């Protein structure tokens, strides 16, 4: 191995694309060897670390998206239904009170329908606890009125509560607010936990890149020294290192994001095949179709790009700091 002519070192497809957009490498320029050789940087190990970090970040993002979407779907279902309970009161005809409450509810703007549950429906609800064959007339069981809302925002729940309290004896309104509040709290907590995990993953990525850059600077100490002597600016030296790290970061980030996207796609595919089975129904009830949708996939791509850019910026700053310390 004597001459460069005998050493073909052509960049790969991604390298060629990056070569066209990265600073310091110009179009139509003959292939000059990079001043910092790619082999001198622990590229493969760093790329694997970045790919793993990107995979974890995308999984976290996907999980947060799933939980948030499922929570929003649950909330949407819940807020579209309210329940009026008419408790038995001595000397009061509960059936008539329930009918009155139904009429009041049905008259409210934004309400689609109001319907009192039949005795057999109440019996069915209580069957798990009290067994079958109940005579509802013997039990002081409240009457339940299910109110479907056409437009939850248009319904004046405070006004409805006031009217029920004033006109119907033993009536109370349950708008499931405590449920939706709990769901919101859970969804918000999930998002906060997810963002925290994302933050930790990014911090770990940055630290890995700092260690790798320091290692690269140490193993290329002679090159840095020569560059100093020939009058290279710190920005030039930083760019030479940054070029490698941006490439590694993008490659690792895209690998990890592709892995996470593939995992979600496979899970979604298998879930769609297991619809109508008890297990599939349970998962669907919790997470919908287990699909992260276009937003999720775009988010994964954004994370890959973010990790690539973050890697490049981190390496650049690390080189600057190192150069400042050795001047």
């Amino acid at each position, binding site marked *: *191995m*004597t*001459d*460069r*002519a005998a050493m073909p070192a052509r960049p790969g497809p991604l390298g060629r694309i990056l070569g066209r957009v990265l600073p*310091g490498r*110009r179009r139509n*320029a*003959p292939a*000059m*060897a990079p*001043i910092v*050789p790619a082999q001198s940087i622990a590229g493969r190990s760093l790329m694997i670390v970045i790919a793993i970090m990107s995979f974890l970040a995308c999984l976290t993002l996907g999980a947060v998206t799933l939980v948030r979407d499922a929570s929003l779907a649950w909330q949407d279902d819940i807020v579209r239904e309210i329940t009026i309970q008419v408790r038995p009161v001595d000397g009061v005809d509960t059936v008539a009170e329930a009918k009155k409450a139904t009429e009041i509810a049905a008259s409210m703007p934004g309400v689609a329908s109001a319907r009192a549950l039949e005795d057999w429906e109440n019996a069915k609800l209580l069957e798990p606890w009290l067994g079958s064959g109940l005579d509802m007339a013997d039990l002081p069981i409240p009457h339940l009125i299910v109110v479907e809302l056409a437009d939850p925002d248009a319904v004046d729940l405070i006004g409805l509560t006031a009217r029920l309290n004033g006109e119907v004896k033993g009536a109370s309104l349950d708008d499931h607010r405590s449920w939706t509040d709990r769901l919101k709290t859970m969804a918000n907590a999930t998002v906060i936990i997810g963002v925290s995990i994302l933050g930790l993953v990014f911090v770990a990525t940055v630290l890995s890149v700092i260690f790798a850059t320091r290692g690269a600077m140490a193993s290329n100490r*002679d*090159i840095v*020294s*020569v*560059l*100093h*002597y*020939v*009058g*290279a*600016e*710190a920005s*030039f030296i930083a760019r030479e290192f940054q070029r490698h790290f941006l490439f590694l970061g993008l490659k690792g980030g895209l690998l990890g994001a592709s892995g996470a996207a593939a995992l979600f796609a496979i899970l979604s595919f298998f879930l769609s095949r297991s619809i109508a089975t008890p297990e599939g129904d349970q998962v669907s009830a919790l997470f919908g179709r287990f699909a992260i949708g276009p937003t999720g996939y775009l988010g994964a791509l954004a994370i890959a790009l973010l990790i690539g850019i973050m890697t490049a910026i981190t390496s650049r700053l690390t080189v600057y700091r190192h150069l*400042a310390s050795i*001047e």
Partner: protein
Amino acid sequence: MIRFENVGLRYGMGAEVLRDLSFQIAPKSFQFLTGPSGAGKSTLLRLLCMSLKPTRGLITVFDRDVVTLPKAELPALRRRVGVVFQDFRLLDHLTTFENVALPLRVLGREEASYRADVVELLKWVGLGDRMQALPPILSGGEKQRAAIARALIGQPEILLADEPTGNVDPPLAKRLLRLFVELNRLGTSVVIATHDIGLMNQFDARRLVLHEGRLSIYD
């Protein structure tokens, strides 16, 4: 061009390795820097090429005080000083052409704009047929000439050479000296650090003699 006034240098809390150095490197001058091994020649060269700062005294390079010079201005000043290292410091993964072109490449210049200059200089130092060779397969003399070419390609105003003939045979040493003299004739100040008396006797020039950290000058 370069002026030292009562310059002293010590590493950490140790004794001074250079003491009370006062001299000037004038434009278009030629001087040998000599002295026994360990006298501080390489350290003095490092002060001259601004990779070390004095612990006392004043060093001005092109009328700029190197101690107070902002870091951002150092590269521009270094480009006016060419350095040839005793161990060449060629980058093994770059061809001879790429090594020599390095000072122009770091300026962000297009290869097309300097290719002819680099080729011409390589021919001048006798490496016209070794342009695509990698340093590991160059001989000591070829490496030395490549290192000299790299120091000259940016047309520095002063050339500092550390034992430039230390790794070559006498005929090549004579040829390299002629190269430096020719360069000096073209207007570049030259400082050659050497302990080769034979080499110094071949050309009548000012001698800066270092001994135990002190400098004697023989004009």
